Structure formats: C-alpha cells, structure tokens
C-alpha cells in the first residue's frame, strides 16, 4: 500500500478567534471539516491519511475556550484547557481531586501539556481495526473486524456491544460522570447543556459517533457542580504500561459517608463499553451500607452482571469486579504519576 504515513494531507486551515466564528465555519463545511483541539487524536487520523478533511478548524486561538472559573461552589472548565493545567488547579485539587487523579493518569507529561479536557472526553475510540483504516461498521462498512473468531480483541467491550465492540478510552470521562458534571455545547441554534452521563452515545444510537456532538457543534465547557465536592474519591486505571497506554479498565467513584454509612454514591467504569458505564445498580445497592468488605463483595458481583466477553477479553470481568471492590473499600489506591 503506497500510503505516505508521515505527512498530513493538504487542508485549508481556519483559526477562528471566537466560538461563534468557529460554529459558522463548521456549519458551512459540515462533514468536510475536522475540529482540531490538542491535536493528539486528530493528527493520527491525518498522518495515517484516513481522514482527508477539506478544512481544519483549529480551536487553539479561541481564548473563551480556555481556563478554569469558579462558579457557586463548582467549576466551569473551558474545553480547551490543557490537562496539566487542570491537574495543577488548586480548587480541582482541593474539592474535585477525582478529576485531578484521572487527568494526571492520561498518557504522558507532554500529552497532558498539549491535550485538552474537551479533547480527552470527545476523542474517538482506539480500536485498532477501526484506527487502521478497515471499513468496519463504525467506518461505514458492514462488519466488525474486532469481533470475528480470529480477532485480537483484548481491549474491547464487555458491555452493550451493538455490532461494534469498540470502547471509550477516556480517563477523565468517568471522573466527570462521577462528579455529576454537565457539558456545555454550542451550535448554530445556541447553547444546550447535556448531563455528562448523556454526552456519550453507544453504537446502538449512532455507530459512527462517540458523543452527541453534531458536526456543527462544539463542546465549549465542562461544568462541575458542588454536588460531590469534597466527597471520598477513588480513581484507578489499569493499563499495560504505566505511561501512555489507554485504560484496560478504569474506575471513578465519589462516595459520601455519614455515620459510617454511605449516603450518596456515584460510580463509573470506562473502557468496558462504547460509553462510560455508570453503575446505577451498584450505587443503589451500597446506599445505607458501610464501606466494608461485605459491601465491596456484593457491589463487585453486581457490577459485572450481564457482561459478555469476546475471545480475548474475559479478563476484564474480574478486573472490573475487583476495581469496583477496591473503589468501595477506598484503600490500596495505586494511581501514579
């Protein structure tokens, strides 16, 4: 295959200075445009020549998309804020350290300096058949190359697969769902707010997209309400290498305990399905119970009910079960970096 894999295809670059200008451009160019944030996902597509957009809309010059603001006990984080800035932010560290831990475990220091929160949550899946340019369901074809008897599918889904078995690779996504965040989306018709847990969509809804963004919409900010501020947080990411790698499974939980009993809980697992998986049944189960081994055992078992494994990913079931148990025990945190 005589494909040049080291130079991006030619494109027209737009560097709008405001969100409104960016939306006008996206509205005009539609599917011919690629939105560029930190570039770490986009440039792979371009360099591999799997996407040849006519126009690239670089959001890097839009000042209103950057920075972290305090709002009534919560935070509003501009979608173009680099992950390393989020990790350093004093309020994130003090009240919402779950997000700090998740952001700190993303990829490598350089990528955290370049990569943005909006990009991390909106990135495309990393299924290598799909990223390799195979015309699978997600790419508009009619087969899933990751779900055949000979497929290598160690990283793929154990829940909610619908033709496509790819997973959502984000680390910050489950943390945001656990923090009850909401996503601020701007389009030609104005602004809409979507709860974080409804931001991602599975293949059953739209097999070609990972989230609800229409081609002419931009994720402008992420709002974190005070709901879970200062709760007991737990984040753990399991991956093959301690740097760079995407999660095999990660877990994010926010638990509020009063008088030895759990009174409020949000628990989310990612990299097991095409969307972050909020474990509502586990949350309901653990309310009123103590954070002990017994509760952890029950929760772990319940969490993985209904899992359907592929040839090479059965290990994800005990892995997820144990991560949920550890999240409930709240001990043995192993996050690094």
């Amino acid at each position: 295959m005589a494909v040049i894999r080291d130079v991006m295809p030619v494109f027209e670059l737009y560097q709008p200075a405001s969100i409104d200008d960016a939306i006008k451009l996206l509205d005009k160019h539609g599917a011919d445009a690629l939105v560029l944030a930190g570039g770490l996902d986009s440039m792979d597509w371009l360099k591999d020549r799997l996407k040849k957009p006519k126009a690239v809309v670089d959001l890097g010059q839009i000042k209103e998309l950057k920075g972290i603001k305090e709002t009534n006990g919560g935070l509003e984080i501009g979608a173009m804020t680099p992950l390393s800035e989020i990790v350093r932010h004093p309020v994130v560290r003090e009240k919402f350290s779950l997000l700090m831990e998740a952001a700190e475990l993303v990829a490598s220091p350089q990528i955290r300096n370049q990569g943005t929160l909006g990009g991390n949550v909106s990135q495309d899946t990393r299924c290598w058949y799909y990223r390799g340019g195979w015309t699978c369901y997600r790419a508009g074809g009619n087969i899933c190359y990751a779900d055949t008897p000979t497929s290598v599918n160690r990283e793929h889904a154990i829940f909610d697969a619908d033709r496509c078995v790819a997973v959502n690779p984000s680390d910050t996504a489950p943390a945001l769902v656990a923090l009850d965040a909401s996503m601020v989306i701007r389009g030609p018709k104005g602004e809409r707010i979507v709860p974080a847990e409804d931001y991602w969509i599975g293949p059953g809804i739209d097999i070609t997209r990972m989230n609800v963004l229409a081609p002419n919409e931009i994720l402008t900010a992420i709002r974190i309400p005070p709901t879970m501020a200062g709760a007991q947080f737990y984040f753990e990411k399991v991956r093959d290498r301690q740097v760079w790698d995407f999660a095999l499974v990660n877990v994010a939980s926010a638990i509020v305990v009063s008088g030895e009993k759990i009174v409020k809980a949000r628990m989310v697992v990612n990299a097991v399905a095409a969307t972050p998986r909020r474990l509502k049944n586990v949350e309901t189960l653990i309310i009123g119970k103590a954070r002990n081994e017994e509760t952890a055992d029950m929760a772990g078992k319940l969490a993985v009910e209904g899992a359907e494994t592929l040839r090479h990913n059965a290990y994800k079931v005990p892995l997820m079960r144990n991560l949920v148990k550890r999240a409930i025990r709240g001990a043995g945190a192993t996050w690094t970096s």
Partner: protein
Amino acid sequence: MKSAGVTSLATAVTTATVAQAQTGPRLVGPGDVPVTLMVNGKRLELKIEPRVTLLDAIRNRADLTGNKRVCDRGTCGACTMIVDGRTVYSCSTLAIEVQGKQIRTVDGLASANGAMHPVQQAFCDTDGLMCGFCTPGFVVATVAVLEKHPNATRDQISKGLDGNICRCGTFVRIMEAAMKARTVARG
C-alpha cells in the same frame, strides 16, 4: 519513507494563499504561508504549509536537526521541545499554532562558545545513551524537569521523563545523568 515525505512536502506546494480577510475567521493555506517562530531566542521567518508540524518546520526548514523524528505520533518523546516552559511533542504540534510562543530545542542548550549545557555534559559523563537517537528528547525533558525542580527527587525525575522512551534501555544511566545534573544545572 522520510525522503518520500519531504518530497511530497515540496511538490504539494500549490499557490501561496493567505486568504484576504473578508469578514469572519481567516483562512490559511492550503499553500505556503508565512509563519514566524521564536526558536531558541531567535526569530525564524518561514514560508510553510499549515499542515507542517513544528518538528518538520524546525528540522527541514530551519536546519535545526537536533530533535529527532522517530515515531511521529507522540509515542516516543524524541521530538520533545519546550514551548512556553512546558514540554510538548513537536511532531504533534502544528508550527503555525505556536507562533508567538518561546520554543526551545536541544540545539539551543549549549552556550554560544560551544560549552555543553550541564545536562548534556552529565549525559556524556555518565554514558547516558547508547544509539543516541532518543537522547535529544531526553535531554530536553531533563532540562524541563530540573528547571521546575532544581533539587528533583528520583521520583520527580522519573515522572518528568515518563513521556520519553529509550529502545536501547539506558534508563538507569539516564537517571544517573539527571541526578548528577541536578547539582550543576541552573536554568
């Protein structure tokens, strides 16, 4: 592969188009456009396409070939540069995006009289390299860590160098070099 890429860069150049700003956002490219970079304290005026990465711009157009192009995908660290005080993968940054920012490459570390930067000297003294291809990236990342934490612990160094990889496996000596450079490197 590499030469094929460079050729395509040269031949794909169409007419230079910096669209005349009508109303609304400026269209840049797809042909050559003027890009001004501040590299190692010097102003660099280039005419490049918007699709050219910071790494390619600096290596191919400015002849500063210290930082290496290895994976070209942000997964090895050999192209690490410091942009406004933060390490970045220059292979995954468009040159046009970092106009107006202070860019530092490995080429700018030695002093004007040719004396090596203390970090470079430490890498030599401790034999912190084998084939040397990853070294420029490691040196830049080490400089960034030590400028942030002049008395960095082993832990801080290893976290700071997390985003660089050495396929020869000289990590122990690299750590030794960084620890040694702590005491001598000051900016």
